[in-house]
């Protein structure tokens, strides 16, 4: 292994089957630390399952996940979050009956008994949470319960919550799914900004314009494993990618 692979997130031979369906088939991927990575592939190629295995939400049948040289394959999801990997869900998950503010504050990670008993709505954290809400443009919804928000607003709120946890690596599962074009641009811009501030991104996305415009490095999945990777210019003209998408 080169020393580069000790930096950042990589997987070795991740495999996961649901009954007879092999969702991940020995997926070995190394993402570029400090860059915007995209993970693309046709529907059902295992991208979401890959995220679920990496974040510990489901247990892979075999293979390992390594983050900064540390094996996190069997770690609990909250421990993986603490290690610095945050994620959003394809079907946007927020706490429906909590206000936007509480949704974001829930990502605070207190330590010790006293830290946990401290008021959730303390000044410093509320200001930080509002900061994220402002940055994502939903500051005016601070007291609105998440279930009363539109889809796009919920997606932004989910992202605000994830960012509140200050993840070094952010996994986004279809951030542009079902949002309007204006919001799409904002999300794209935001990803670039946050990346410039030092966060690594791995983005699963079907919107090729967005993928090509914001990513530095693209990994293409087909049938549970990577079939190609490289910069957008290379991927754009790769025949295997075309084949996978057209089902050849």
């Amino acid at each position, binding site marked *: 292994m080169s020393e580069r692979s000790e930096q950042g997130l990589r997987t070795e031979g991740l495999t996961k089957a649901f009954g007879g369906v092999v969702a991940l088939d020995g997926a070995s991927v190394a993402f570029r630390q400090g860059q915007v990575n995209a993970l693309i592939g046709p529907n059902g190629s295992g991208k979401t399952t890959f995220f679920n295995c990496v974040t510990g939400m489901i247990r892979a049948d075999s293979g390992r996940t390594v983050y900064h040289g540390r094996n996190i394959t069997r770690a609990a999801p909250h*421990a993986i979050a603490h290690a610095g990997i945050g994620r959003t869900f394809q079907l946007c998950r927020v706490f429906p009956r909590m206000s936007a503010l509480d949704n974001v504050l829930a990502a605070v990670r207190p330590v010790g008994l006293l830290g946990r008993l401290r008021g959730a709505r303390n000044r410093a954290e509320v200001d930080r949470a509002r900061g994220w809400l402002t940055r994502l443009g939903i500051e005016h919804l601070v007291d609105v319960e998440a279930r009363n928000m539109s889809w796009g607003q919920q997606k932004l709120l989910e992202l605000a919550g994830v960012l509140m946890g200050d993840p070094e690596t952010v996994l986004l599962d279809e951030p542009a799914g079902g949002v309007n074009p204006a919001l799409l641009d904002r999300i794209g811009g935001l990803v670039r900004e946050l990346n410039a501030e030092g966060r690594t991104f791995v983005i699963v996305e079907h919107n090729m314009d967005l993928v090509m415009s914001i990513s530095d490095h693209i990994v293409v999945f087909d049938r549970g494993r990577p079939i190609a990777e490289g910069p957008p210019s290379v991927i754009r003209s790769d025949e295997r990618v075309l084949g996978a998408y057209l089902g050849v």
Partner: protein
Amino acid sequence: MPSASDPATTSAARRPAVTPARAARGVLLLLVVVAALSFPSLAPNPYVLSAGILVLNYALLSTSWNFVGGFTGYISLGHGALAGLGAYGTGLLVTKAGLPSFLALLVAALVVAALAVPIGYAALRVRGASFVIVSIALVLVLLLVFQSWASFTGGSRGLTVPRPFPDLLRPEHHRVFWFLFAGLLALALLVWWLIDRSRFGLGLKAIREDEDKAESLGIPTFAYKLVVFVVSAGFTAAAGGLYALWFGDLDPVFQFSILTGSYLVLMALLGGVRSLFGPLLGALVVGTALEYFKVEYGSTPLHLVATGLLLAVVVLFMPDGVLPAVAAGIDRFRPAQQSIREVTAAELREQRAGGAAAETELAGARPGGAPATKEGA
């Protein structure tokens, strides 16, 4: 609910000045305290006082239940058994080990809290149904054990617990215990309130909303659930112990009754599991009704039918409780409540005036403000 008053200064962290709602709440709290303190002198006879203690006991148990049920959304039908363990633990420590009454109560509560660790481990390790299954199984198995192990527990003959204050006359005895129960209830409410506003509490509520999501945000869900279950078990057992010292006579059939557990659930659900005083209110209603019907009609199978029907109605039609349902009803008539959305809309207009184009687009994406239909849901 903090209402968004002035957009420039609103912050949930900054305490708003005394609002009418806050003042009303303060007055209400004061009234409750005064009522609690004066009830023993107002009660016309010892019987009413002892009935009041029973209701207070229910309020305490139901509030203790609400540590788990309210914060995490995990519903236990087995808290009757935890109370029974506390009661028997206290009784046995007094009679067999000769411990002073209240030390016995404390030790029993701590022992039950410790026991709650392995129980909670089995119940909470996997998500969902296993918790309910364990809670029911706990009642059933403890009933078996305490009935069968007659040499130790007295079996079906029951266990007599000596009174802590042998010199006191009956009315005085009730009076003292009224205040003891009220004190313990106040403590439970205080702890619930502290957790409710804490980071720990927010984590628990996140678990209630979406456990996977909470975990992925970094909340150690299993540990959180276990801790709050242990706290709940401790308070429940203490309540059971206090009951043992007050009532002085324990019978496994009543101590390990699944019906008791379901009363607690009913009370909490009825009053509203998300609010501090919900279970207390529910206990006042259900507990009083229970006592009333017992006196008027004796114990008939129709009690079961009524309990079942009431539970079914609450579950089907007002799972959030009566208190929140009423509050929502009142809100509909109060113009101030709509301010959340109207102020938001005003803010939006301001932002549109001076904001970036993207933000205008975003505002356009909102479906005419948040959908108003969900308000009463």
